[in-house]
């Protein structure tokens, strides 16, 4: 299961990325999802409400997703084909703003950043500092229910400006714009700092196996997780599944771990 999900609104935005990442369609009754070895792709449809619902449903179905990268076209008073990162996402209707924590500058060639304004209807009040799209705020709202803003990024390719308005956008033109940004998408995907997230999957695995054998209440599960994390931090490794199962009851398991922790030695180098 991959940890990064690229989100596009249009099929023409999805197509070059699906091809580049050699993704295959995932069978789902309502979502247009694709999966490859490096990342997933959600084609969420146009508009912030649609985007928000699709992203929320995807994150619910695939809790292993730890980052969202929105790739798509946008309007701004910049040359057609300019690639920009969003340093902020602003929802025009609500006035709410979010600030994604941008990746290190040496990990992406994207030097131009803009305020990305999500509008409900196409807007042609173009400026250099702002780009318009119709999904970003919806994606952000949904993504932030489970992810931090270091893991929600927006890469836009300028498709319309005051010289070439929105009517000039074509399907093939959109495909070409996304194709021109493939390397930037790849750099951005690689720059997502997933390695900085603490991993507790081994602890979660051991708990999932243990609760199949011994009954733990929710409170006891919470205690068990904290004790196992402390055990690993202080003793360097987790107890074996067999050792824990020998304790027979939840209380005995918790007592066993608490006793082991109280005897743990912490030494610092002289």
């Amino acid at each position, binding site marked *: 299961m991959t940890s990064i999900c690229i989100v596009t609104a249009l099929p023409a935005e999805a197509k070059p990325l699906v091809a580049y990442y050699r993704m295959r369609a995932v069978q789902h009754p309502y979502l247009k999802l694709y999966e490859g070895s490096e990342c997933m792709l959600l084609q969420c449809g146009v508009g912030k409400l649609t985007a928000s619902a699709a992203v929320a449903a995807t994150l619910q179905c695939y809790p292993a997703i730890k980052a969202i990268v929105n790739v798509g076209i946008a309007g701004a008073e910049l040359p057609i084909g300019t690639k920009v990162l969003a*340093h*902020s996402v602003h929802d025009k209707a609500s006035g709410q*703003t*979010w*600030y994604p*924590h*941008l*990746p*290190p*500058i*040496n990990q992406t060639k994207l*030097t131009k*950043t803009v305020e990305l304004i999500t509008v409900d209807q196409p807007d042609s009040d173009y400026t250099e500092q702002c780009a318009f799209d119709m999904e970003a705020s919806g994606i952000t709202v949904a993504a*932030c229910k489970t*992810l*931090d*803003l*270091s*893991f929600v990024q927006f890469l836009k390719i300028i498709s319309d400006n005051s010289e070439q308005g929105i009517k000039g956008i074509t399907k093939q033109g959109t495909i070409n714009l996304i194709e021109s940004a493939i390397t930037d998408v790849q750099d951005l995907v690689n720059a997502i*700092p997933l390695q*900085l*997230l*603490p991993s*507790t999957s081994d602890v979660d695995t051991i708990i999932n196996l243990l609760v199949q054998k011994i009954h733990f209440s929710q409170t006891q599960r919470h205690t068990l997780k*904290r004790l196992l*994390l*402390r055990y*690993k*931090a*202080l003793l360097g490794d987790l107890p074996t599944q067999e050792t824990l199962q020998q304790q027979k009851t939840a209380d005995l398991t918790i007592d066993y771990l608490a006793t082991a*922790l*109280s005897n*743990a*030695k*912490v*030494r*610092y*180098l*002289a």
Partner: protein
Amino acid sequence: MDTIYIEREIANHTRVEGIVARFPKARCIHIERYTDVFNAPHQNFRVQKANPALILAKKYGKHVLPTPPDYHIGGKHNYYFSHMLNCVYDCRYCFLQGMYRSANYVVFVNYDEFFDSIKKTSEHHEEPSWYFSGYDCDSLALEPMTGFISSCIDAFETMPKANLEIRTKSTQVRSLLSRPAIDNCVIAYSLSPSGIVKSEEHKTASLEKRISALKSLQHHGWKIGLRFDPLIKADNFESIYHDLFKNVFDALDVAKIHSVSIGPFRLPRPFYKRMIRLYPESSLLAQDMNLRDGMLSYDTQTESTLLNYCEEQLDKYIARKQYFPCVSVP
């Protein structure tokens, strides 16, 4: 620094221009108020710590605040101020990890308003008053970029009734060594045993370098302070703290040390809960803790053992008048 957020109101401030000029490749993003970015939800302190942004802002409201009751080094009127929020270092025990949502650095550029506030506060008291820098940041670590401490010392030179403590782990002391020491300023170093520095005080100068900086400062005429805070529990606690005290006091002119303080390890419960979520693998945070009055700390017996041992050791080196236990908490 990759990303610099700048409040629009101070975008043309000379200090802002000076700081931005040091980072020609940085993305500069204009914002209304620093709180829009710094206090926003859905941030990850641990992830941001690897690549923090700089936020340049103007400080409004109170620039100087009273310290907690036991936070002092002998003065009757004690205040702290923070020209910066967050620290370039990454000490696993630091309360800032639990206090702020963001690891980005906020630098307030309206230094003069801090100094005016300090002046007014000091004039309000007939007795000398104390002002502690380095409560929400390291005072010196970004000095080459901010120049705040240099300006601060200039200001304190004109306020003989006001005393300044500059708390730091940084060895960026060039600016202090390039000027005469002033009488109403103490440069105070936070010190821990070498093994704790290496394991828990990430990105900080080594103990040896801190001792070397202290020696240079003392030799230059600055009053120096030693802050053994927080005391960290370990099975070889006595041996590592014994070595620490010996190394520090053997290197310095002990009689000229202005003040020495020790402080127990304590964290407000909400901070602690956030910190263990951020760093579940930390052995320091995984140790047994007790909850007392909303604070997480070692059990009272362990805490007393640590404090008593350190006080016994300190008695061998310093006079009682130099010693100030600090049991206050953030």
